[in-house]
């Protein structure tokens, strides 16, 4: 029994932060990119054959993942493959994941893997994939949808949510819907048989059906051609589907249990090695309740914040409830609250910026304020 993986790099976009990068390469948690969590799930589960489907803006993703060496992968057929529009056979104008998969049929048909695990990079988990696959096989169903309870709340719109009956059987499926709290949310991770998926992709796309959640899962279930199993994921799941969620989930990492669950729950998370020195905390710095990566130089005050690698905080600067990405410099005496500084930003000395929880101020990559 062998398993291959597929990661969808940019099915979701959250505005400014993903305007020049895929969702998969969005920095998260101080030293990671979204894709790291997906690569960790798949590779910790022993998967070495995997494809990353990306439609645009994939340069930063490829820079980050590279040959996949850090995750024990090898680039090339049967190993890690980038399924970019150029690498795929036809149809650069994708409307949905089934069309994406159709364009990647060569990849799906290569090798002799029995099962495929598909995941979308917007939702982060620390998932025991072999257990999901084992339960999928035992269920005898066509598709296993990994679900998370407690996400559906009658407020958040979900891509895919399911209502389960008393014996765990699927009682209802909804797509793009503000589901009430008795539904479980899909974490956009699915297990299917490889040959089965190839057949479905050919059939559905031939009939102008291209949406994975709506056409294959919901439609197939409704007309009785697709049988659905669910797997209840108990660990931490972070839905980064909007800037506000991204901000809130980043702040949630300051909670010990959330941080442990996502970083260490089932397995460790690897990322690209940068060989930065340890962070230097200056004589007069004050750092409280913050997550700090390596390579930094901190002389000012930092509270309730996430500092990525190689961040400089000048003397007397005050940073509160901020996300500060790689190589960014906050000048002396600057005051920032509810601000997301993208990579390589320069904040001039004395500058004051203040956003709010729902609408943090975003300073774009490379800008000077």
């Amino acid at each position, binding site marked *: 029994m062998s398993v291959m993986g597929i990661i969808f790099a940019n099915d979701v976009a959250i505005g400014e932060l993903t305007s020049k990068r895929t969702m998969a390469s969005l920095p998260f948690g101080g*030293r990671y990119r979204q894709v790291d969590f997906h690569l960790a799930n798949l590779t910790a589960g022993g998967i070495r054959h995997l494809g990353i489907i990306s439609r645009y803006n994939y340069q930063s993703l490829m820079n980050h993942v590279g040959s996949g060496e850090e995750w024990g992968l090898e680039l090339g057929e049967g190993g890690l493959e980038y399924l970019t529009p150029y690498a795929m056979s036809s149809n650069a104008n994708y409307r949905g994941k089934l069309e994406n998969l159709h364009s990647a049929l060569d990849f799906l048909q290569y090798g002799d893997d029995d099962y495929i695990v598909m995941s979308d990079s917007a939702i982060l988990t620390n998932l025991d994939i072999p257990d999901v696959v084992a339960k999928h096989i035992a269920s005898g169903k066509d598709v296993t949808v990994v679900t998370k309870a407690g996400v559906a709340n009658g407020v958040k719109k979900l891509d895919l949510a399911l209502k389960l009956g008393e014996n765990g059987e699927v009682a209802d499926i909804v797509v793009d819907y503000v589901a009430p709290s008795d539904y479980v949310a899909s974490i956009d991770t699915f297990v299917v048989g490889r040959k089965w998926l190839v057949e479905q992709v050919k059939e559905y796309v031939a009939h102008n059906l291209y949406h994975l959640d709506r056409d294959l899962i919901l439609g197939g279930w409704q007309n009785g051609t697709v049988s659905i199993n669910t797997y209840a994921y108990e660990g931490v799941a972070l839905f980064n589907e909007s800037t506000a969620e991204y901000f809130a989930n980043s702040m949630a990492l300051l909670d010990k249990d959330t941080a442990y669950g996502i970083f260490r729950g089932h397995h460790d998370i690897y990322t690209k090695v940068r*060989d930065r020195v*340890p962070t*230097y*905390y200056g004589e007069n710095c004050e*750092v409280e*309740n913050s997550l700090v990566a390596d390579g930094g130089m901190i002389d000012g005050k930092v509270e309730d914040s996430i*500092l990525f690698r190689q961040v400089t905080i000048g003397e007397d600067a005050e940073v509160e409830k901020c996300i500060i990405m790689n190589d960014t410099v906050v000048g002396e005496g600057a005051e920032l609250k509810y601000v997301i500084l993208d990579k390589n930003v320069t904040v001039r000395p004395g500058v004051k910026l203040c956003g709010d929880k729902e609408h943090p101020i975003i300073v774009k990559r490379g800008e000077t304020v």
Partner: protein
Amino acid sequence: MYFQKKRAIAMLLAGGQGSRLKVLTEKTAKPAVPFGGKYRIIDFPLSNCVNSGIDTVGILTQYQPLELNEYIGNGQPWGLNKTHSCAQVLPPYERHDKKSGWYKGTANAIYQNIDFIERFDPDYVVILSGDHIYKMDYDAMIKYHEEHNASCTIAVRTVPLAEASRFGILNTNPDNSIYEFEEKPKVPKSTNASMGIYVFNWKVLHDALVADEEDPNSSNDFGKNIIPNLLNAGHKMMAYNFDGYWKDVGTIDSLWEANMELLGKDPEFQIRGKNKIYARNNAHPSSYIDTTAKISNSFVAEGCEIRGTVKHSIISVGCVIGKGAIVEDSVVMPGVVIEPGAIVRHAILGENSKVLSNAVVGGAFGPDDKKKISVTAKNAVVETVLLPGEMQS
């Protein structure tokens, strides 16, 4: 791998026990001793090689090699795992002619690996040791060696006259050529101390090693035998001056000092910036600094949880410092746990060692300013107290 002719390869002597590091090297070879929060001592010569364009490094191991072998692995962290590069661990082995066995000395270690060196047909062999902290461009030294048409070039630095008798001292002519080498002289004639970094023409070194092996009275050592013999034979030997930061970390005091010299706004040793030092990285998340933490003038590596006070210290990867704990003027190696309320001063805490709640390690230095560093071994546990200058196994 495919063996391509190399202009220069490096041989790194990493087999020494480092007995002066006491409990820190009971189960670890000196080059594998952690340094600077996320490095090990061997990262410095290895990174220097890579930064100098030397892509083939033989690493001679003997004492407690397990951890070191594991650490070096296939050389990937230093980029030494490509088609034309390698980091090859060379432990002693048995040969048909019985000219093998434990490495008898530094020269014998190289002698026993002549076959390894010859596979690359190098013009030059750089001999390095695994117990110094520094950044150096070996390629500049090789160029100097070439320009002066020398058989051997030795890196030297000026040391205070009072300390000169602890080193191998090179006496030089005005053109920097060496006319005399004295190992730890009682009355030093100069202050040019050998740094234990040699560039040899391989042919010259090869013949010197073979001759040395045939001499039953030799102690098979570079400083004691090979260098004096080559001088006596009339070979041209040059001194190469190096005035950058360089520290022998062979003792508890010097290891502690070298770590402390990383700290400050303008540190004595610039580990940051140009000529990056590479290390094997583990999958540690960022460090969490709690509301109760107070950190100043310190290095904190990744994967830590800091809830106590940290002053003028090096906190390595994966350490936990509990609420109310105080860590001052100390080197805390990877994976150490300091429980709430514990106090650690002037100490080196070995990997994965533990200081239990409210225990006290070390203290202030005495009025005579004599350093008394307390040290814990790997996995040691301090339950109540470890006095200044004491060791905990």
